[in-house]
């Protein structure tokens, strides 16, 4: 059910309301929005039993249009000659990443909805991140408490990049020493080429070590003491590694 669609956005809630009300009507609707903005999830939750047709396969679409009175058309932007389609007395829900001919869309569809991208529904980001955190914790059977740094969430590709950034953060927090070792082993196995690579890749260890130390202990003097190195050496490394 669409009640499960995670959103605090008034605009999306109005889309849900409008589409819910068309469930019993024979009208054509289209939901347009950027890739991974939640269009397919929303439509699937609202019309769980509907038949799907792919705009990339016109022959199959035309066949399904003849048989069914309710049809969901995905990848609608891939269809050509859309003015020749007949949606009369059918419940059509089309999903498109973008539209090419506004006039034809306007004449073909009664209900035209624009799904806002995540950057336009900031109220949804924390909500979705929390949901994804729960999802990833379950999937990875994570035992310890994990937190998300909301400043590091990536919404440039909507849910695709958001999911990736949440998974990455959780993954980065849950690795143990063996896994870090294994990860570095795989990395070096692929990259080592034999020209002073020790020096080239030493930063992979030193940079996070010093950055984390500075954040944790505040001063270079204290960190030098903690790390057991000379403070001049530490200062030099900070400079060389370009640590702010």
């Amino acid at each position: 059910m669409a009640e499960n669609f995670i959103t605090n956005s008034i605009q999306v809630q109005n889309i849900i309301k409008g589409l819910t009300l068309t469930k019993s009507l024979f009208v054509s609707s289209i939901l347009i929005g950027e890739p991974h903005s939640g269009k397919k999830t929303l439509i699937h939750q609202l019309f769980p039993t509907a038949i799907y047709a792919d705009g990339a396969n016109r022959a199959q679409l035309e066949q399904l249009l003849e048989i069914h009175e309710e049809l969901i058309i995905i990848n609608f932007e891939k269809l050509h000659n859309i003015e020749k389609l007949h949606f009369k007395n059918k419940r059509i829900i089309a999903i498109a990443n973008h539209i090419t001919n506004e006039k034809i869309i306007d004449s073909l569809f009664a209900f035209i909805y624009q799904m806002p991208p995540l950057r336009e529904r900031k109220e949804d980001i924390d909500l979705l991140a929390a949901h994804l955190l729960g999802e990833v914790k379950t999937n990875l059977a994570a035992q310890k408490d994990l937190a998300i740094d909301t400043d590091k969430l990536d919404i440039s590709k909507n849910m695709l990049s958001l999911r990736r950034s949440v998974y990455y953060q959780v993954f980065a927090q849950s690795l143990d020493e063996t896994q870090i070792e294994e990860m570095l082993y795989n990395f070096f196995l692929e990259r080592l080429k034999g020209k002073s690579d020790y020096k080239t890749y030493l930063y992979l260890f030193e940079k996070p070590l010093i950055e984390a130390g500075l954040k944790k202990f505040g001063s270079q003097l204290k960190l030098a003491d903690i790390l057991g190195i000379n403070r001049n050496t530490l200062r030099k490394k900070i400079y060389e590694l370009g640590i702010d």
Partner: protein
Amino acid sequence: MNSESIDFKFFIESDNNPFILFGVNGKILYLNDAAEIMLGYTTTQNLYNTALIYAPKNFGYKTTHVEIQYDMLLFYALTVAYQNEEQIGLKLYLKPRMDTAQTINTDKLQVTNINALLEANIALFKIHNNGNLTLLTDHDLPSCRIDQNNFSKLMRKIFDLFTLASSVHITLKLIVGEYIIIQNRREQILQLSIQADIRNSSDDQMIQKMAQEIHTLCICKADSITLHIPFIQK
């Protein structure tokens, strides 16, 4: 030709164009059937004032081509005539409406809960308008047959004209006492009115054409759009 003995009253009575004969101070001395209907949409005083404005300077008659609208009644010209100081006559000429050649195939119209259809259209409108919206409707309206898709397209286009409004009032009701004949059947008329503090009128003609295609009368005013929809039940 001697017309002394011919009774013209019957012909005036049954004329589709309204005719009113005013006496001194705008008192109605006579009106035909069409004028009686017209008085449902405007006032006697308003009509009398119109007669005085367009009256000829001297005894006689004057026809003026001017567009006049009283609610849903649209006229393209009027004639004002008088031959003494006691009586003045006003005749208005109805503007012919475009008649689409299409006939309604009522079997192909879907049985519809008109309130649900309207709610879906309002939900779409509310995405684009944050103003105060009120809806006055009769939730007991029985289902009727309507072309849901084309009706919704029309509603979307109408609501597009109200996106800048800060206050929108929608009324849906059955008109009492007025009917429309469709395929020899007398059908009731459903009136849907959208009224707002401000509206765009640039697409009024297109909307009227779209309405006509679904056998709906569209009355556009400065602050409102009213639809008269055939309420087909069988």
